Structure formats: C-alpha cells, structure tokens
C-alpha cells in the first residue's frame, strides 16, 4: 500500500516536472514580447497619412524652435527668445543662470539652454529631411509638400549659421538609422547649404497651387536673407524681386491653449521669466520708450496690459530683479493663442530697401521703408493689436493720418544704415533676425558686413545683475556636441 502511494506521488511529481519543462520550453518571444501602445514603429509609416503626419511633425518642430515649447526638459524658449537675449531684444529676468549667461554675453560651454536651442534647430532640420522621402513615396503628387520641407530644412540651416559660431557640424542619419557625424562647418558653408535647400524648395513647387506659391515666396525671402548674410546684396534683391513676394504674405505658426501656448506670451506676459530690453547695455533697442506700434509695450499688471489680456496681472519679474524701471510686457503677441508669423512679405520689402541703400539709391531706400510704415496694418505681426486706422488704448496715437510718420534722409550713409537696422529691428522684433543683424554690423566690410566696432553695436559695460558684459557675439557649439567625434568647438571668434 505504501509503495503504491509512493508511486502515485512520484507520478504527480513527474507531471509537475513535465509541466514546468513545458512552461520553460514555451516560445520565449511569446512570453517576453510586449507591445507598448505609446510608440509607433517605422513599419507603421507606409501610408500617405503617415507622410502627411511627418510633414506636420516637421512644421511642429519649426513651431517649437521659433515660438518655444513648454514642458519639463524641453526648450521652453525658442530661438526667437534666445537669439534676442544675446542681442538687445530681451532681458533674462529668470533665476536660471543659463539665461543670465546669454543675456550678459558670457556663455559657458555647458550652457544647457543653449544646447536645447542647438538640438531644436537640428531636430527641425532632420524632421524635414526624414519627411521628404516618405512624402515622395506616398504622396507623389504633392510636390509642394516636398518643397515646403526643403524650405524648413533651409530655414533651420540658415538659423544655425546666423546664431552659432563657425564650427557647427551638420550630421545625418543614414538609411540604416546610423548617425553619420558631420564635420565642423563654417557659417559660410552652412549658408551655402541653406541656399541649396531654398533652391530645392523652389524647384519642388507646383505652379498655381497655393502651397506651391507659399513655398516659392518663403524660399525667396530666406534666400534673400542668406545672401545678405553673405554680403551678396545684389543677388538678394534679385531673388526677392523675381519671386514677387506679396506685401501681405505671412507664414504663421499657430498657438492655442489646448495644444501649445505662445511661449513668448507665456514666458514674458504670464511668467515674467523674460522681459523686453530697453536701452540694454546701454545702446540697445528702446521699444519701451520709442512708443512704436510695431513693438507695443505696457507696464506689467497695469490697465494698459489688461486692456489686451485681462489676466495679465504680473507686475514683477520672476526673479524680482529686472533692474531699473518697471516690469515690461510685450504686446506684439498679447495673448496665449497669438499666432507668430515666422516669415512675412515685410522682410522682402526690407531686403529690397537694403539693396537700394547699399546700391547708393537712398531715395528708393527711404521710399521702401516709408511704404512699409504707411501700410502698418499690412506689414505688422497679425496679433499686434495696434492699428493704422483705429486708435487703440495702449498704442501710439495716429498723427496726421499716420500711425508711423514717414522717415527722412538723415544725410549720411552711416546714419541711413542705422535707420535701416532700426527699422528692421522694429518690424522683425523677436523673430531671430536681430542677432544676425548685429553680427552683420560688426562683420568686416570685406566679408560683406558693415565694419562697425563691437561696443557700438552689442550691449556692453556694467551688467545689471553684477559684473560686466562679456564679448560673445554668437552662441557657441555646446558641450554635448563633443559626442560627435568630429567636434572641434568654435573654429574662431569671428562674427
């Protein structure tokens, strides 16, 4: 009896053992493999819809790097802020030293905020690059979509060159998704890349299609801008004029509370981490005292601000250390859902004006500028609440039928250049043009610049948070780039 019981137990043990063996022999893939619904694999991208989503993704990257992206570890401020704080458009009123470093023109290699700007620009470039083959394969008839991606790529390349020192590599992902590390390139090399991208954008447009026209005008404006950066003003004028960019053309990034707030509003008007600069260093731009409708400014928390945004109650900066005067709030984009035009017909006219000036045609130069001023409603940022036809509280009054009075010839080439750059500064305020303009001003004439001295252009002297301004005229290649084996840092300190 005992033996029978024993044998029964042994059989049960054997059964258990066999079950365990079977379990162990189960397909490991079935046991181990999991599917995370949060991710999308490359194999899911083979449709026209996915091509369109990649295109929109590249535009979203462009929106992030221009207007900014809210969120932990993300950009927060876009290049429209970051470029402007190194120039004279913005002041850091934050407690983050990374922003103060740039504001005081003393940037360290490890500046994490600057790294985010570099990464954001390259991500925009690569997003466009990745979308192009998918669009060509799955939306072969939407040629202008491809052109638009070339323009996005060119815009990113141009902005890298305008804001960073010589030496930024341009890397790629190859077809096997392996990083092909780029060699350091000079600004001129990158500008030439951008020119090729804009040419490709123009070449990939369909005539008579709205998006085709848009891409063509975008490519012309930015190509003209790059040519000015390279000192080739004659060619710049030709490109813009040939493209016949309409006066009222605007390419706009949209913002809303449900998807993404306008971060210029969020970080200045709402959070007070940035503040418009006024006479920074001390020769900087003076929008607060200029009473100029192109850059309307109010004092935080006052009725003038609340007139445009009832919730604008902030009367002090985030760091409560904004220096002399009052806490300033910009009104170009007065609400959280104000759209930002990243390229406008305004710039085409400004390029034409500059070409005229550099060609010695002062009359045309002034006519072009005054045409812009006389048509404020056409050329302003769309969310700017000021109007040339209505008197708006908080905006300059309309004098003699003009919101912006006509300019007159100051009499010298140098003064006209000052006039040009001041007009550009107001029309293109906080759209990542100012730093490139300051760099052009100090660049030697032989390199297409204006040969001004550094201390006559960049903020300098005593920095209000302590110490003196440094001598940075551009963003530097961030330390994270050291992970590129070709890294060499800034190749020089040339503007």
């Amino acid at each position, binding site marked *: 009896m005992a033996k029978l019981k024993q044998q029964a137990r042994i059989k049960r*043990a054997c059964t258990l053992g066999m079950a365990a063996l079977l379990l162990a022999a189960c397909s490991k893939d079935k046991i181990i493999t999991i599917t995370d*619904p949060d991710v999308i694999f490359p194999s899911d991208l083979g449709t026209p819809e996915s091509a369109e989503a990649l295109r929109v993704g590249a535009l979203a990257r462009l929106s992030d790097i221009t207007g900014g992206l809210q969120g932990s570890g993300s950009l927060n401020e876009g290049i429209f802020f970051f470029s402007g704080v190194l120039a004279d458009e913005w002041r850091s009123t934050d407690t983050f030293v990374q922003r103060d470093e740039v504001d005081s023109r003393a940037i360290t290699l490890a500046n994490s905020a600057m790294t985010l700007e570099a990464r954001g620009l390259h991500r925009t470039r690569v997003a466009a690059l990745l979308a192009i083959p998918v669009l060509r394969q799955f939306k072969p008839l939407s040629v202008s979509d491809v052109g638009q991606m070339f323009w996005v790529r060119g815009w990113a390349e141009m902005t890298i060159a305008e804001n960073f020192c010589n030496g930024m*590599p341009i890397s790629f*992902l190859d077809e096997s998704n392996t990083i092909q590390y780029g060699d350091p390139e000079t600004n001129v090399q990158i500008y030439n890349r951008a020119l090729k991208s804009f040419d490709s954008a123009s070449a990939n447009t369909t005539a008579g299609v709205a998006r085709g026209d848009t891409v063509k005008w975008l490519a012309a404006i930015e190509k003209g801008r790059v040519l000015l950066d390279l000192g080739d003003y004659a060619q710049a004028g030709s490109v813009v004029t040939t493209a016949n960019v309409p006066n009222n053309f605007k390419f706009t990034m*949209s913002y809303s509370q449900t998807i993404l707030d306008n971060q210029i509003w969020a970080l200045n008007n709402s959070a007070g981490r940035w503040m418009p600069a006024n006479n920074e260093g001390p020769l900087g731009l003076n929008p607060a005292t200029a009473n100029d409708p192109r850059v309307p400014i109010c004092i935080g928390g006052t009725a003038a601000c609340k007139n445009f945004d009832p919730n604008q109650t902030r009367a002090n900066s985030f760091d409560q250390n904004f220096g002399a005067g009052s806490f300033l709030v910009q009104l170009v984009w007065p609400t959280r859902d104000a759209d930002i035009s990243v390229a406008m017909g305004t710039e085409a006219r400004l390029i034409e004006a500059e070409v005229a000036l550099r060609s010695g045609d002062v009359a045309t130069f002034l006519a072009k500028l005054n045409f812009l001023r006389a048509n404020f409603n056409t050329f302003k940022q769309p969310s700017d609440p000021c109007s040339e036809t209505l008197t708006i509280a908080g905006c300059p009054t309309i004098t003699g039928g003009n919101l912006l009075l006509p300019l007159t010839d100051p009499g010298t080439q140098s003064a006209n250049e000052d006039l040009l750059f001041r007009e550009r500064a107001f029309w293109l305020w906080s759209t990542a043009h100012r730093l490139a303009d300051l760099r052009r001003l100090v660049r030697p004439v032989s390199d297409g610049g204006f040969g001004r001295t550094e201390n006559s252009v960049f903020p300098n002297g005593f920095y209000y948070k302590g*110490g003196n301004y440094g001598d940075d005229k551009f963003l530097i290649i961030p330390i994270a780039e050291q992970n590129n084996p070709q890294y060499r840092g800034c190749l020089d300190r040339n503007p």
Partner: protein
Amino acid sequence: MIRSVRRILIVGLSALAPMVAPAQQTTGTITGTAREQGTGRPIPNARVMVTGTSIAVPTRDDGTYILRGVPTGSVEVRVLALGHAAQKQTVTVTADGTAGADFSLAPVAVQLEQLVTTAIGQARSVEVGNDIPKINAAEVVQTKPITNITDLLNARAPGVQVLAGTMVGTGQRIRIRGQNSLSLSNDPIFIIDGIRMQSSTGSSSIGIGGSTPSRISDIDPNQIESFEVVKGPSASTLYGTDAANGVIVITTKRGRVGRAKWNSFIQHGRIVDKNTYPTAYTVFGHSPTGAIRRTDLSSATCFPGDISLGRCIVDSVASFNLFANKETTPLAPAYEEEYGADVSGGSETARYFVHGSYSGEQGVYKVPQFEINRLLAKNGIIPGEQLRPNALTRATMRANMNLQLSPLADVAISTAFISSSQRLPQTENNTTGLTSSAYGGQGYRTKCCILGTTLPLNGYRAFTPGDMFQETVKQDINRFIGSLTPNWRPLSWLTARGNFGIDFTNRVDSDLCRQGQCSDFGSSRLGFKLNNRTNLFDYTFDLNSTAQFHLTNALGSKTTVGVQYYRSIFERNGAEGDILPPGATTVSQASVFFGSEASTYKVTAGSFVEHTFSLNDRLFLTGAFRADNNSAFGTKTSVVIYPKASLSWVVSEEPFFARFGFINQLRLRTAYGQSGTSPGTNDALLFYTASAANVADQGTAALFFSALGNPNLKPERATEVEGGLDLDMFDNRASITVTAYHKKTKDALVARTLPPSAGISAVRFENLGSVQNTGFEASVRGQIVQTRMIGLDANLAYSNNNNKLLSLGSVPPIIGTDIREIPGYPLFGVWNRKILGYNDINHDGILTGNEVIVSDSAVFLGRSSPGLELTFEPGMDLWNNMFRFTAAFDHKGRFVLKNSNERIRCNQRLNCFGLTPQASLAEQVRVVALRDHPSRTEGGFWENGEYTKLREIALTFTPPASWVQHRFIRADRLSITGAVRNVKTWTQFTGIDPEAAAGAQFNLQDPFQAVPPPRYYTFRFNFGF
C-alpha cells in the same frame, strides 16, 4: 551513493522531473517540545527541521511539534528559535513508529544561526555564504518610534543607507552597498511574502516640487514579522534581472498553532519642527546724494560692492526670521496616531493571522496666523485640507492563512488590502511653493504686497502660504497584495514550491485650484483640475523544486531548479480641465480639456539551477546559475546568464579547531555572484511618437522621430565577491560580523548624449560604462552586563563604500553644472571651481571679485552620497527587563553637500547674511565668488556633509505578566513605550539639516528649498491577551 548520484542526475538534469522512480521509502514520526533553558517556558514558533530533508514544522503555542514522514533510521533534528541558541539532536526513527525529542534552548543575546529567506525558500543562515542581516521588525515596531517603513529600515543594517522623506508620506532613498548605475535605478527591489512588490519611490504623476509618495510607504510596519537585506549580486543572483541593487525581503506575520491570541496597540505622537531656519537680512542705505538704496532694490542696490565703492552708505541692517515669529510661521505642532489589532491562532491544519489597522498623520505645515486673518476676512472659511495641507490616513487589512492540505502539502495564503489618502503641500523646488517664498523673503515684514492686495508679504518673497496651500494635491491609493505559496513534499527528499501573486495598486492623483484661488501665477487663478488614474500591476509566477539527501553520512546534497516569470504593468489615464467656474471642482466642469494616456510594460522570465553540497553539516558549497530574458533587452540580446557560487564553513565545529573558551561559533564565508538591472522599457527601440500640432489653428496629427534605439542593449551586469566571518562569543553574549565586498558593474548603461547636430533624441542608452564599489562592513553586538537588576547591551555597525566610475566607454566625460561623471572618480562626483583664498587688499573689510582667488578650472570636491556610516545602539534593561531604554546614534560621513538654499539666497533672493556689511571676510568669500568673481563659481557652497544624529531614543515599560493578568480579560502581555525620533543633529553643514532633500528618492541629495525632518514624540501601548 550510486542511488544518490542518480537522484542528482534525475533532479538536476531533467529540470524538475524525477523521471525514474526511486526505491521505496518507509517513514516514521518525531514529536517533542521546545522549551527555554532555565525558565522551562515553551517556545512557540520555533522552526524544527530534519537536517538534509525538506521536513520542517513550527512549534505550537505550547512549544510542541510533530514531524511526520521522517525517513527511517538515524536522523538529525535541529531547532532554531528567535533569541535562542540553535540546538540539534540525533533521533532514531522506525517505520511507522514515533520517536521523541525534547529540546531545551538557551536564551542568547546574539544569534548567528537563524533562518533566512532566500530566492528558493528558507535556509539556515550558516548554509548561505553571504551576510544577510535579518531584522526582527515586530520587536522594533513595538519598542521604537516607528511611524512608517522608512523608520523601520533606517540605520538597522550595515551597508544599507536610507534617506527618509521629510514630509508626511513622501518617499525615501535606499542604497545598498553604494550606487551602481549612472542611468538606471539604484533602488533595491522588494519581495513580500514571496512575490515582487511594487516599490517605486517616485510614485505620482503630480509634482509638488521634488518629494513624491512612495509605494514602499504603503506597507504598514505593524504587519511585518521580519525583513532581510540581500545586499548584492553575490546573494541576489537567483532573484534575477533587476536584483543587482539588492533585495529587501519582507515577511509578514503569520498565525501559530494554539488558541486565538489577540494583540492590539494604540500609538499617539506629537510632531514638532525643532529646526533652525535661516534668517533673512536686508541692508538699508542711501547714496551720497541721499537716494534710497537697499539690497532688494534692483535699481539701487546696497551690496558689499556698492558699499566698498561708496555708492551706498549703510543706514541699518534689518533681519527677520518668519519661522520664529508666531504670526508668520507656517509651522505648527502636528499629530500622529495609529490603532490596530490582530488575532492569530489555529490548528495544525489551519492557522490564521488577521490584522486591521488605521493610521493618521499630519504634517507640520499650516497656514500662518496673518494669513488666516486675511483669508477669513476674504472667504469666511478656510477648509481643513487647505489649513493643514500635508496629511496621510491609511487603513490596512491583512489576512494570512496557512493550510495543511495533507501531510505532504500545505499552502500559505497572504492577502492585504491597503487604502490610503494623502495630501501634499506646494513646496521645495517650486516657484509657488512654501520654501521658495519662505526662504527667499526679505529681512523686514512690510514689503508690499500679497498679489492682488495691499497687504504686506510678512517676510515671504512673492507668494504667501494662504494662497499656496489652496492648491490641493492628493493621492488616493487602493492596493491589494495577494500571494499563494504552495509547498508539496511528495517525497522526503523532494519539495516543490511555488509563489504566485499579484500586487495591484489603483492610484488616483489629483490637483485642484478652485477659481480665484491659489498663488497668482500664470493662469492658476482661472482654476484647474488634474485627475490622473493609474493602475499598477505586478505579477509573480515562481515555481521551483528542491531535492535534498545525503550522498554519504557526511556529504549532503541539495539541488533546486526553478522557473520564474515577472510582469509589471503601468497604465495611466489622465485628464486636465482648465478655467473652472466658481465652485467647480471637476475636470468636466472646466472650459478647456486635455487628455492623456501612458503605458509601460516589462516582463522578465528566467530559470535557474542551484546545487549545494554540505559536508558534515558545517561546510556548504553552493553553485548556481540563472538564465534570464527581459522584454527591455535589445533584439540582438537573447538570454543572459548570471552565475553564482558560495562557500560557508562553520570552522568552529571542525575537530581540528583549537577550542577557545570564549568562542561559541566561528563561520567563514565567501560568495561570488552576478545579477543585472534591465534597461527602461523602450530604451532598445527605434520609434516615433505622435501628438497634435497646431497648423492654421487646427489640431492636426503629427509624427515625430523620437528615439534611435539600440538593438544591442542588454542589462547592466554587476559581479560581486564578498567574504567575511561571523563570530559568536562569550556564551552567545557577543557577536562580530565582518564582511568585505568588491562589486563591479559592467555593461553599465550610459545615457550617451547624442550630439545636437544629429537632430534626433538627446540620449541613447548604450552598454558602455563600468562602475566599481568596494567596501567593508562590520557589526559588533554584545550583552555587556546582564544581572537581574540591570542589563547593558550595545550594537555597533560600521560600513564604508568606495565608489569609482571605471569607464564610460567611448563617451566623453559627462559634465553637469556641479555633477560630473569622470572615470577614476566616484559616480555623481561633485566638481566645481574651488575658492583657493582671499585677500582684502584695500583693507576695507569688504571683499570684491578681484580679492578672491578661485581655481582656474573645476576640481573634484567630493562624493555626493555618504561613503561611511556608523551606527551605535546602546540599550539598558532595568529591574528584570521591566524597563528598557534604547538609543540610536547614526553618523554619515565622507561626502559633500551643497547649501543650495544659501546659494540662491545670496545670488537671487538677496537676503543672506553674506551680503551684509556685518559678515566676516570668511562669510563673504563664497558670496563674492558667486556674484562678483568672473568664475561665478558655486563651489563655495559645497560643504562637508558629515553629520551625526541621535536618531531615536525609547523607553519601554513591560510589567510582569502577573501584573496584567486579570481574571476578566486574561491579559498576558502589556508594554508601554515612549520614544522620540530625530532628537539631535551634530554637523558642520550650515544648511538647515543635512537630511533635508527636495525629493529624497533621487540619486542626488539636494537640499534646495527642501524641508528638514521634524521631531516625533510617540507613545505606544501594546496589549495582548
């Protein structure tokens, strides 16, 4: 011998199934009683086992036991009981006969031989080649100021460093033998009653500024019988991937055979913040022309530099400490309370333990009086949840059963249900948080104004607590932990065992700002509500089988094979509603909605084989390996193998051992083993993500290239060798345990920063790094004096850890503002430009930037986590143990800590003493280096972090049983404990407290705007009948 070898082959090589029937066996029974030597009292719950077999039972309440199915012949019976010396007897068993064996166990102060829980079941500690400290949690909870599981773990075992959260309900950091990983978790895993427990320390979707709740803290310490610390890979190999940082094994209480026994307790505590907070200073002055200048007047400052240059003539220095003022302090005494009862008992066939408890605890934060006046005038009422924003209530039910299904099979069932509700205040690294404003205000109360009013800020910087605490952050938890542990012993030499269970947590995080409430920042006052609902599942399926027998009379063999499956699921749905109408408190009442969904899954499957040879039951040689696969490994990585080997030798039992009168037992041990840590769930994958983009004011689907992935990704692999000895001396009145270890983590996952120019994700995980931890641990425990009237005992534990990053592979050093990862230096090493000296050249008593000398580049300043810990626990018994007094000192050293509060106070808040003309040159220098020297170095704010704490003192009164045995209630146990936690701190660190950390759970301990630990006074009444 041949038969035994065949058995090994059967069990070991056929992976669980003995395919060939062994020869017939006949069995008998052994019965007896275990009593305490001297008193004759029965010893309940002692473990009685037949050596070399799987046969083991606990003693009943009356000390009796019955061992059934014992093989005939001469067998060795061994008894292990807590607080008593182990004892063994040789017993002869006849077929179907009953043999008797009574034991008389000597009570001992120290105990080296005890049962420890391993991955494959319980084992005698002498069989294991590792040091696995076992803490009698039930006793600690009854006699110490314990209010949560962190208190239970803190400073109990050498090599285990615990940094407790400082607010009620916030998480902790636990590090065992140093930090191993740059990029992955350095937290140990937790096992409770045989299954994996959800133990995330940052368990919340809503931040308050750093600190977060921890799922470890859900566990009520009153339910725990003991916990063991499996310190490193040499011991944790068989726990599989993720066990490289150690394992904490929790065993909950279980029923004993006997009549129903009731235990109840009441604990009440008072929580008081006794810390000294920084005083704010403001320098008032005027310019030579008479214009007002002030340190906080940004347009006309009065900094030392201004004074030195004659721009500011000082009129006065105002100072104010809002924490020291009754009107303005946000601190108030709080309470802690716990109530619980359990009943246990049962028969041999069914034992039970049923426990219920409730605990409530309030944080010390409170709306200050000046704010109460303002808010009452404005709203007429302050809701309690806003008045006291930090609180935790928790109710726990536990029912454990042990069922003897047959003489050969039993099953242990463990179930627990936990329901808790927690509130957390806005504080720490949070612009609208308490400490940002409370540490950052000026040296005078009248500064204008509370936003939206004309009332003064009363020493607060920008926001005041009445508004801050209106933002209500809550976490509600409903959690079930259930496990089933069947044991089947079909043969005397074969055991099959399983652990099956689930740990399920339903977590609801919410954050509410009613319309018109909260700090006036951004659009908060328009009102918002977040409601994030998360389900966390942790499944364990663990099956193993052990065969053990004697190959010869001297040589024993034990083989275990097993499989294990562990699945972790995280699923969260979130909803946010912005712009609430007055009175609205739900997402659906808002004007603007957001939704979110997030999921994370991870699976580990593994199998293992372990074999132990024992020689004369005093030399144990173990070899094992575990094969694992994990869902997070790259596609090119399949199974990883972790080997293990250990040797334990009770050398004092060898005949050749020269007997020294004072040595009771000497054990030498060494162990080698590997374990791993798996990468993050999606780290190996190349994938895209999707979100909405705004194109022409329309939400449109967008795809983004998100991660490059790494198909070669594999786990971090830690290899550890440890060796040491356990010495038991002076009639078991003293013991010494010494262990040295060397742990090397290879294939360490480095979050390799990708160059921005690549235009893709910021980092990619690669197995590049190598980290080394070496250290030494020692503990000395002794009963110094033991008489009827007085007893003195002490426990001294020391541990050190030397941590070094050996390699980052091809990745250049990782440079942060303060923290750098540089080969040859510790992980998370602190680097900054160092102040080398200063010289007041113009002798004006004020330093300026050019008078401070700073190193040209960053230099290594020290470790960021303690490299040394020393704990000392003296105890004293009086009047035949009627009174017991204990204390616990805890010293941590060899690390630096940043006084980041003072850094921001000097740099941005402009209220630190170093900015006043009264500051000495030594007090000015780091401020000047930070503000005026071109380096802008923060290096001067890194200080020696060394500290010593009198962590707890306790006095327990235990009256003799005769005093409490009442004929109506038949009470047989009573104890009353009064205790204090966080009694005193000695340190040179100039911050508030070296254990204040904004988020204790992080790898880096950052005191930035952190709150320090308060003091607990607790009074506990334990009553049993």
